[in-house]
């Protein structure tokens, strides 16, 4: 084929068409000499260089620590997401066996990643002195396996496990590096890692999963034990005992024959396996055996592997707020602040944004049996949308003042408000009004539209009770009821799904039974009546579940978009973990007499707990839900809410509890002259803070503006000042020891005001996206929040002279409570906050 009659031009044209896309940056001279100061970093040495760029040993002059500073070869040109992706991947992973990302940013036009500086040498360097004995290799392999466990547990595959990427620190600890190739689990890819460590499937288009890494781990292990780098097990592995057996298993050509994840490797290496009776194969005792999908370790079958799939990588300040799984378990629809997204669970990949023709915040998402979705949005009123299965079209089904809706297969429309359930059919509406102390939470049609499941909450003397009912969709006649105090928690939506046998739902396990929820099943007949005994299908080690579906093969699929699994309480001058009675405790105040007060909501009777200096425990039981406890003159002021926290009828009060059981209400501001009120749909987020445990305390009250009152016993509250903007989610304030108000307005600004509202100072917190907690320590201010530009949480100490220091820095753990204590002590409430959307899948249980 001739393109032109000019041979020179034709040659050039062919050259242009065939030119390859150049890669990012040719290695050359490092961009800066050692000794150069780059922004706040002093470059003190060169640690390494490669295609990705250069790694310096550097000193962070602001935070006063040594770091490994990774820079690209050049500034500017050929922006690549890879560098940022790697930073985000590692920043989202926290484990002692992974190198931590301290910071990501840009300095003098250069993007940088500041990493933990590990003193040690690479495993590759160690290998130059020859292979190791099994007992020498085992702790190193265990370290790598633990690193992989952390990576896999977060839904990632490393894809480049090799001795060059493992560092054995001087203290003997092991760290895995380099996440430049890491992929989300399950994503099809042609990335093959380093060829000599890659499994056979690396040359095919298969979704990359954890078994890609366990194969590379096998190659690495064999190299450690035998000094041989080969993609198949050598016979000599048999001489390396149990470790050799694990490595042999890793090198299986068929992925399904390999250990399924880093967690399985850790278990296999931690528990020195004993030979199973009579299981002797060709002289080699195989102590590990696959039984179904579970492994036999020490003769004990592990539970079937639950597959956890991370669907999103959300920024910490941009969480998912509603999600549902399609009835066939293949698609997930989720909402964040940017809109409504569809995910293909099998790929897994984001399929695209679902565009609704009108603005509004998505409130609820429900999957229908026909593959379409019922979505409720709020923007003044509520709109119920029917979104078709491929997310292309959305049509309005209903508009009104309801909270959630559903559409039956016969066209019937369900509208649910706190106090009223309406099923609309042509010409005949059926209504159920909530009884006096009942709030309706949730309702949906069954697949055939003949039944409804209705969830409600009823106020009782001891607190509230949640109930599930199955009723006829035509006359709302109730056929089955189940009530339990632990039918999920107030911060958790009711989670139920129709099951081929009846109704499945999620219920919180009792306090003290560990962190977790159970999935129960009630077999039902076609008319909705119980047709068998209720049974527990599964238990999940997660506190929060936001969606449940039964897949086509009967597997249980659960969805969560926020983990509230653990509260850590760190206390004392060195912030040591403190013991807690239950995992949901939050430190609230630390009195000058030395009692550390915590609130606990998961117990049957929510309690304020105080641990005294001598280790004694004081308990002040309450009904309702607690937000804070503030010591004042030897008593404790507690803000409590009873009823429904998500909306609907609620009762709130501010009471003063004394140790002898005394209970005295305080008067509240404004129109609420009664100490106890029953009205608004959302309980006010009021806060109390007292300087030096003396009255007058200050009450922060969310009215039209956020109002601050001086609060004294038996006296009406006195308005001090008000501020226009203290946003619900991130607005925080706290009294300082010097009697001023420290106010984080939700936009990242932190101001200090006197009690007339006059601004005394502003504190610079530009490096935080938002402020989650404010506290004081002598003249300094402590603030915590997600760091700007990198998905990590920080606790920063700010000094009046502008000095600052990072006290804590973590990918998942956010400090949510900062409590200043006597004798230089500090108590911190730490929550694991995971804003991503996760799907977990387990095979059907009998």
């Amino acid at each position, binding site marked *: 084929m001739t393109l032109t009659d000019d041979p020179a031009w034709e040659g050039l044209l062919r050259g242009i068409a065939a030119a390859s896309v150049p890669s990012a940056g040719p290695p050359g001279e490092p961009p800066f000499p050692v000794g150069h100061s780059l922004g706040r970093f002093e470059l003190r040495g060169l640690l390494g260089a490669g295609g990705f760029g250069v790694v310096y040993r550097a000193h962070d002059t602001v935070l006063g620590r040594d770091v490994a500073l990774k820079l690209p070869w050049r500034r500017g040109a050929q922006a*690549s997401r890879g560098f940022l*992706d790697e930073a985000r991947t590692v920043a989202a992973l926290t484990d002692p066996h992974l190198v931590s990302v301290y910071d990501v*940013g840009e300095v003098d036009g250069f993007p940088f990643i500041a990493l933990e500086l590990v003193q040690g040498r690479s495993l590759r360097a160690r290998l130059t002195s020859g292979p190791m004995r099994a007992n020498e290799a085992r702790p190193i392999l265990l370290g790598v396996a633990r690193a992989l466990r952390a990576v896999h547990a977060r839904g990632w595959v490393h894809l480049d496990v090799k001795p060059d990427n493992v560092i054995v620190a001087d203290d003997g600890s092991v760290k895995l590096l380099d996440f430049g190739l890491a992929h989300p689990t399950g994503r*099809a890819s042609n990335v093959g890692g380093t060829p000599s460590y890659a499994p056979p499937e690396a040359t095919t288009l298969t979704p990359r999963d954890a078994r890609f890494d366990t194969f590379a781990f096998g190659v690495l292990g064999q190299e450690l034990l035998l000094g041989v780098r080969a993609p198949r097990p050598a016979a000599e592995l048999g001489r390396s005992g149990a470790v050799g057996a694990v490595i042999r298993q890793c090198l299986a050509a068929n992925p399904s024959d390999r250990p399924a994840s880093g967690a399985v490797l850790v278990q296999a290496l931690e528990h020195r396996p004993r030979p199973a009776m009579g299981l002797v194969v060709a002289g080699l005792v195989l102590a590990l055996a696959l039984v179904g999908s579970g492994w036999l370790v020490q003769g004990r079958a592990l539970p079937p592997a639950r597959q956890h799939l991370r669907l999103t990588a959300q920024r910490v300040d941009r969480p998912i707020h509603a999600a549902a799984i399609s009835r066939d378990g293949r698609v997930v629809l989720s909402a964040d602040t940017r809109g409504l997204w569809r995910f293909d669970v099998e790929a897994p990949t984001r399929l695209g944004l679902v565009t609704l023709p009108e603005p509004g915040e998505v409130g609820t998402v429900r999957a229908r049996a026909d593959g379409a979705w019922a979505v409720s949005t709020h923007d003044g009123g509520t709109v119920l949308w029917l979104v078709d299965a491929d997310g292309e079209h959305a049509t309005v089904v209903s508009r009104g003042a309801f909270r959630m809706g559903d559409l039956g297969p016969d066209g019937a429309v369900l509208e649910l408000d706190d106090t009223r359930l309406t099923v609309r059919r042509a010409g005949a509406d059926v209504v159920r009004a909530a009884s006096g102390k009942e709030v309706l939470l949730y309702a949906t049609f069954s697949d055939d539209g003949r039944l409804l499941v209705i969830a409600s909450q009823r106020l009782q003397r001891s607190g509230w009770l949640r109930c599930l009912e199955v009723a006829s969709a035509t006359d709302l006649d109730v056929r089955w009821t189940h009530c339990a105090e632990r039918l999920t928690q107030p911060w958790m939506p009711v989670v139920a799904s129709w099951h081929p046998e009846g109704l499945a739902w999620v219920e919180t396990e009792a306090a003290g039974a560990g962190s977790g929820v159970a999935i129960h099943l009630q077999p039902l007949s076609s008319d909705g009546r119980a047709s068998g005994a209720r049974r527990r299908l599964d238990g999940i080690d997660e506190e929060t579940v936001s969606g449940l579906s039964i897949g086509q093969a009967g597997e249980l699929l659960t969805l969560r978009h926020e983990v509230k699994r653990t509260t850590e309480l760190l206390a004392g001058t060195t912030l040591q973990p403190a013991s807690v009675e239950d995992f949901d405790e939050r430190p609230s105040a630390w009195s000058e007499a030395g009692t550390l007060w915590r609130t606990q909501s998961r117990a049957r009777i929510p309690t304020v707990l105080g641990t005294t200096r001598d280790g004694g425990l004081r308990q002040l039981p309450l009904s309702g839900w607690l937000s804070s406890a503030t010591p004042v003159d030897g008593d404790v002021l507690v803000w409590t809410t009873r009823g429904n926290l998500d909306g609907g009828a609620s009762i709130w009060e501010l009471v003063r509890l004394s140790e002898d059981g005394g209970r005295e209400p305080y008067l509240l501001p404004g129109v609420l002259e009664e100490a106890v009120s029953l009205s608004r749909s959302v309980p006010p987020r009021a806060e109390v803070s007292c300087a030096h445990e003396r009255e007058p305390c200050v009450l922060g009250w969310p009215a039209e503006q956020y109002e601050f009152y001086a609060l004294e016993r038996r006296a009406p509250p006195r308005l001090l000042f008000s501020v226009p903007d203290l946003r619900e989610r991130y607005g925080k304030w706290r009294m300082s020891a010097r009697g001023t108000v420290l106010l984080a307005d939700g936009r990242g600004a932190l101001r200090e005001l006197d009690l007339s509202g006059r601004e005394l100072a502003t504190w610079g917190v530009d490096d935080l996206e938002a402020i989650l907690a404010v506290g004081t320590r002598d003249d300094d201010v402590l603030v915590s929040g997600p760091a700007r530009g990198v998905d990590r949480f920080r606790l920063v100490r700010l000094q009046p002279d502008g000095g600052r220091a990072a006290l804590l820095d973590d990918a998942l753990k956010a400090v949510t409570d900062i409590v200043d204590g006597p004798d230089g002590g500090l108590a911190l409430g730490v929550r694991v906050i995971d804003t991503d959307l996760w799907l977990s899948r387990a095979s059907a249980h009998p």
Partner: protein
Amino acid sequence: MAALHSSDARRAVELALAAWGPEIEAFLSAVMGDRGAGAELFAEACADVMAGMSTFQGKSSFRCWFYAVARNAARRAMRDGYRRKRAHDADLGVFEQPLRSVTPRFVATDWKRRLHELREALPPDERALLILRVDRAMDWHEISHVMAEEGADVSPAALRKRFERVKARLKALATEDGWFSE
């Protein structure tokens, strides 16, 4: 390619990948002007091919169909603001390419870089047209199939005219860049 006619979609895609994967990935990289984006879109295109195997009707060659699917993936990515997203990332800080697919310095010569920059001066659609016609030596009917918008083929005659304009534009750029005086 018996697998193409059997129900084993995964096997068929693997075979197609082995046969045409590198050229299609290179095509996507060139259209997007970025290897990372090309690799990402290639993975998407492979998944699309696997998902859409049952819709392959044999009206074109499988290779041509694979190109069409890849082209759609690129078009979708551009429509979905891939560029915008990358520009946004660049605002956050300009981040360089990590370990993957680094060309050694001695291969990525200035000469090749300059050829690449000439092609980069064209819009993505014209880059695709140039590569398919000149480097992949497709006939106009095949190109029309690959470049089809939402299933409606672009006429071969229109493509031919457009190609002439692309050539003229490239020649002007090359002249300006001093190629013909060297």
